[in-house]
């Protein structure tokens, strides 16, 4: 008996191609869609890079280095949004007002560019450098850190985390490099003479080239100060080491001109590494011994060394212009996604009534009455359209009530998008009903089509995680256009005029599909 029951199931499946389609083909179709999305979209495969927009008022050396660093990262795709010149003096820049005379964009233009870039949906994140972004990293403690602004539309939170990490990595690397240089400089005071050999002229001393053949041997256990003293003795064995850094009364310890230091205590060619920067502005006192001076130097350098890797080099701020003026812009997207998905289902369900009426003979009864085929199709379309508008409205009203999506603020854009979306789905549903021969066929076909459209079009999975190819495919669905439109309205708060493309596509589809539905429906009239 069990085998007989099993056989019934088998025979029913075998004799019903639609059921076979649902049982075997649909899972494969969906597997392919989701595999396409997740393998080349969300996953970290090379196919899907984070697209980063780069925008800065002026290009500086540090900025260019940062950009080069970002471009070298295999997970990022960095593209400049504004081409701007390298200025001769960044202090001339203004941060407000019209575009500056030398072609450097002002804040207003940059803001507009960022808004446009976000609306285009082509960027996961935008990096904005301020007009006063420095040319090089500050080395001293207490200096103002570099400011980097990450502008996000909130669609891809992972992008913020990733880019923040990469930018911080750049500055950490830069800091480490600077600190390493400082350490190298510190030790060069002790190593200089020992390493130096030969008559070569080194053009890096104060007041002239560094010349000499002296050597000394650094012994284990010697302090930095002791080694520095040895080095000075090697450099100038005649002079008392105390006189080198000592400030003789009545003499000018440091002689400088416009181009830099000429001599130190009358000695030219002093290696730069030996003279701390602060000594240039604050010469040592005459009563300090050479050793004390050297200890002071070492202490200062050591302090620099320790502080240079701990001070704040970059301050990253994250800005979400959309979230700044509304509470839950993302909720509106989810509301739209779900609303469109269910709208498609309910629309085809309502359109199926046409087939039901055809099967029962009700349509024949209508057709021989006063109602023509056009009236019937138009009436059905209008009913599905109005119901669709109502369905979306209820969804958004609920979202407004619970999540405060600022429906009233965007009522105009919402109305436009709702009307267009409902019109397109109504025509789609009517076309499906006129193409299919039975309700069973319509149910099977519509389930496959609607779920596929919703998966690819962004109702199930956000489109920003999809690969470009998947996004292109998504453009063939109502979901994608409707979601793009609602996104512009609720997320980017764009004006109605920005909805031209979405409105054109949706209304165009509504007209084309509606006319096709009318043409295909003639089979009922002609028999």
């Amino acid at each position, binding site marked *: 008996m069990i085998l007989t029951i099993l056989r019934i199931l088998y025979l029913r499946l075998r004799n019903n191609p639609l059921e076979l389609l649902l049982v075997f083909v649909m899972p494969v179709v969906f597997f392919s869609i989701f595999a396409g999305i997740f393998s080349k979209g969300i996953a970290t495969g090379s196919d899907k890079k984070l697209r980063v927009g780069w925008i800065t008022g002026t290009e500086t050396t540090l900025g260019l280095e940062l950009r080069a660093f970002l471009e070298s990262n295999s997970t990022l795709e960095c593209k400049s949004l504004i081409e701007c010149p390298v200025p001769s003096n960044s202090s001339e820049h203004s941060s407000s007002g019209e575009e500056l005379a030398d072609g450097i964009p002002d804040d207003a233009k940059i803001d507009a560019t960022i808004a446009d870039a976000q609306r285009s949906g082509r960027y996961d994140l935008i990096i904005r450098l301020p007009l006063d972004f420095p040319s090089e990293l500050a080395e001293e403690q207490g200096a103002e850190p570099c400011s980097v602004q990450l502008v996000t539309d909130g669609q891809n939170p992972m992008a913020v985390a990733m880019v923040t990490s990469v930018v911080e990595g750049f500055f950490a690397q830069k800091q480490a490099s600077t600190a390493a240089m400082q350490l190298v400089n510190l030790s060069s005071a002790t190593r200089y003479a020992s390493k130096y050999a030969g008559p070569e002229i080194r053009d890096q001393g104060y007041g002239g080239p560094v010349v000499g053949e002296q050597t000394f041997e650094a012994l284990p256990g010697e302090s930095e100060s002791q080694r520095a003293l040895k080095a000075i003795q090697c450099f100038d064995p005649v002079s008392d080491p105390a006189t080198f850094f000592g400030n003789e009364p009545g003499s000018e310890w440091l002689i400088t001109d416009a181009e830099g230091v000429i001599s130190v205590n009358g000695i030219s060619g002093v290696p730069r590494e030996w003279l701390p920067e602060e000594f240039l502005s604050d010469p040592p006192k005459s009563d300090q011994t050479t050793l004390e001076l050297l200890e002071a130097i070492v202490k200062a350098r050591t302090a620099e060394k320790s502080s240079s890797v701990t001070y704040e080099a970059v301050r990253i701020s994250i800005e979400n212009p959309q979230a700044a003026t509304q509470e839950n812009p993302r909720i509106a997207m989810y509301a739209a996604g779900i609303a469109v998905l269910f709208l498609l289902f309910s629309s085809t369900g309502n359109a199926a009534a046409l087939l039901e009426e055809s099967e*029962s003979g009700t349509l*024949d009864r209508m057709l021989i009455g006063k109602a023509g085929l056009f009236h019937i199709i138009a009436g059905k379309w209008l009913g599905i359209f109005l119901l669709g508008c109502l369905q979306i409205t209820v969804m958004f009203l609920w979202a407004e009530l619970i999540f405060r999506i600022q429906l009233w603020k965007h009522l105009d854009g919402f109305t436009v998008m709702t009307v267009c979306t409902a019109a397109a789905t109504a025509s789609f549903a009517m076309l499906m009903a006129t193409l299919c021969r039975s309700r069973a066929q319509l149910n099977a076909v519509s389930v496959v089509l609607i779920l596929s459209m919703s998966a690819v079009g962004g109702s199930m999975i956000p489109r920003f995680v999809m690969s470009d190819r998947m996004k292109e495919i998504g453009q063939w669905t109502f979901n994608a256009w409707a979601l793009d439109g609602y996104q512009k309205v609720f997320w980017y708060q764009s004006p109605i005029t920005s909805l031209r493309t979405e409105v054109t596509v949706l209304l165009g589809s509504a007209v084309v599909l509606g006319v096709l539905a009318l043409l295909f429906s003639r089979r009922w009239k002609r*028999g």
Partner: protein
Amino acid sequence: MSESSATTVSPVLTLENVRKTYRGREALKGISLELRPGELLGFFGPNGAGKTTMIRCISGLLKPDSGKIIRHPFDDPDDDEPVRLGLVPQNLAIYPDLTVQQNLEIFGRLEGVTGKVLKYRIEEVLEWAALKDRTRSLTKTLSGGMQRRLNIACSVLHDPDILLLDEPTVGVDPQSRERIYEMMKQLTEDGAAVLLTTHQLEEVETRCDRIVVMDHGAIVADGTLSELVSKFIGHPHRVNLKFDHPCSKPLASFIFDEPRTSATCSLASMKELPQVLSVLKQLEQAPSRIDVRSYGLQDVFLELTGRSLRE
């Protein structure tokens, strides 16, 4: 409707040599027919004979390939009032999720009946279909017979001149069937022409004024039951005798078969029966069984269409 009046009243519907090829098959092969006001015409034929195609052609849902379908006085240029047509499909062409009243309102409006007229007609039709006490019931909660009556009621709200019914009594109990035929009788009495297709022989025999038998897309017979019997069978009654043993003696008016265990005699009228049976006294052995039977539509039908199965 009497036979004489049927021929004197001008037809409300005329079909002239209507031909229709449907899905690669010649479904109607030159159908010619007239339907008069007050006439209940039964269309009878095996499955696939072309009955439904013909109804769809008459109702305008199908366009004939050739021939004419004239709905008088619709095609009469001197008459502004078009012929009103009602169609009762074989399936329940009503909305099960609407109440009886709502269904009637909807289909009334679709036929152009509105306002007070519609309200009045709904009252009338509810009474006519014996559904007055179920006005507010959802259609799906009605019995099969009630749903069938509502199905018909929805087609008469505009007071049609011609009502086409496709198998109107399928799956209903005898009481409901009786009620449906009473409804049709009232319609014909009010002057409507009713054309129905059915497989119920008894219904056609007893209810219809005229019977048309269709087969293979053509009308093979058209007339009253007695006309058909007399035309295709001959005598309308038959006496059949069965014997246990072969009967060697001949019997007047009876025809024996071989091996003479059965004999048949046809009668023009039942009045001849006593005289025919009286000859049995001459027999040596009494018949084991005597069957007296009147010929009906089934005999005509089988005579015309044969006994092979259709579709």
